[in-house]
């Protein structure tokens, strides 16, 4: 805020605004001593102004409720944006700290404490609801799966070809429901930071090959020209959670097949650069509209042209894929031109 503006509303009014803000605010001077704190922040930390004012951020390590804030920001008060902080039981804050510069020199730091406890509680309730419902759904889905299996093995009498075909369709839909349930459970795990990884040395080439084999029939059925190219003669093994990376590769191949018109092309390439391996998959087809590209890795998002072409899918595969790749310290991105082609890439550190 400009000085003229402060003088216009008056210093007293300015501080009244500062003090009455719903969010907690703290200002540290250039030596990282607390010089200003509003009532909301005092209430959050259950502390009196006189006990904390003029203290250095390093002194916070001795105060139980402030300790986590010190651990987050460090003694030099680093800049953070909307970082979640578990302050105490039933108090979760979102912390933003920014440096206030004068002639390129940091003269103070402003810390904003936004209480997100209620949002987190709602999120937890929603996640619990999804988890419980998903588990409840698994039991009847298992009973259906197993009954269908016995029927298709003619354990309950010989089946006609038509009956077999119908059973095949029902089984496919049953499997799809199981995948939707599993995907919902994975989403909750990602949101709660419980999506665990087991890293082992693994050949990514073999992994891609096995997923490609799984989709071969589907590719042939759509008369898609398909190519899988390994650019290096000898690919090194990578430390990955193979099960999770398989989910990513499946999602990308599945999408490519889904959005390629019959007779189109899919090209997969696998190569290694200095310290990373790179996977890419190109498909001709509907592409991703430019104005929707920024949403493609968001939860429950499907591009409008994708929804028109294929009503299946709940738009979470790429969200899960991005989380998996980032947990491997890799990167996932894409290039796309509507009605022409899309290329998805991911890399993984060697």
């Amino acid at each position, binding site marked *: 805020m400009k000085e003229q503006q402060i003088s216009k509303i008056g210093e007293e009014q300015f501080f009244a605004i500062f003090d009455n803000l719903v969010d907690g605010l703290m200002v540290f001077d250039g030596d990282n001593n607390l010089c200003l704190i509003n009532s909301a922040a005092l209430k959050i930390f259950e502390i009196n102004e006189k006990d904390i004012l003029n203290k250095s951020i390093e002194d916070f390590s001795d105060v139980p409720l402030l300790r986590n804030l010190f651990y987050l920001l460090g003694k030099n008060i680093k800049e953070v944006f909307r970082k979640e902080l578990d302050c105490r039981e039933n108090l979760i804050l979102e912390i933003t700290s920014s440096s206030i510069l004068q002639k390129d020199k940091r003269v103070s730091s402003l810390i904003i404490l936004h209480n997100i406890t209620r949002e987190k509680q709602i999120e937890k309730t929603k996640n619990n609801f999804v*988890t419980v419902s998903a*588990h409840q759904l*698994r039991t009847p889905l298992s009973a259906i799966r*197993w*009954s269908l299996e016995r029927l298709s093995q003619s354990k309950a009498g010989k089946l006609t070809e038509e009956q077999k075909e119908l059973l095949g369709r029902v089984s496919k839909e049953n499997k799809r429901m199981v995948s939707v349930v599993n995907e919902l459970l994975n989403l909750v795990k990602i949101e709660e930071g419980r999506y665990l990884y087991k890293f082992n040395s693994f050949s990514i080439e073999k992994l891609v090959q096995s997923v490609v084999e799984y989709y071969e029939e589907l590719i042939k059925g759509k008369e898609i020209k398909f190519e899988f190219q390994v650019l290096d003669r000898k690919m090194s093994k990578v430390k990955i959670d193979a099960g999770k990376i398989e989910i990513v590769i499946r999602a990308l191949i599945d999408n490519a097949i889904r959005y390629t018109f019959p007779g189109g092309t899919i090209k997969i390439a696998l190569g290694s650069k200095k310290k990373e391996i790179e996977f890419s998959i190109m498909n001709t087809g509907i592409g991703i509209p430019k104005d929707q590209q920024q949403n493609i890795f968001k939860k429950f998002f499907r591009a409008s042209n994708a929804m028109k072409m294929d009503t299946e899918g709940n738009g979470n595969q790429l969200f899960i894929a991005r989380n998996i790749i980032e947990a491997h310290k890799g990167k996932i991105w894409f290039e796309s031109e509507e009605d022409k082609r899309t290329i998805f890439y991911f890399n993984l550190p060697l």
Partner: protein
Amino acid sequence: MNKKKKILLVEDEKDLKFLLKQTLVEEGYEVDEAMDGEEAFEKLKENEKPDLILLDLLLPGMDGYEFLSKIKKEHDYGSIPIVVVSNLGQEREIKKAMDLGAAGYLIKANFTLSEILEKIKSFE
């Protein structure tokens, strides 16, 4: 002729129990069944010791976890391999069961009966 292998099936869901039991019997296993942990202990005491226990986790009385922790302390039954067959499938649930001594863990909805049979055979 070889003696039939014996399996104790601890499962409270009637439909799932029926399907699993039918499949196991057809494969030549002798199947004893129980609704929960308490009944499973009764069956163990009444009948001949099984070669394998298939155990669900969410059970009306004594649940699967409690059953696992108790049976592993029993001198006579502690060595019977126990395969958990449950629809709980979070990592922490799997870890808890494995830490308590389960020999395997199968998420029902993710496996066909034939796949479950294969796993059972691998414990023989």
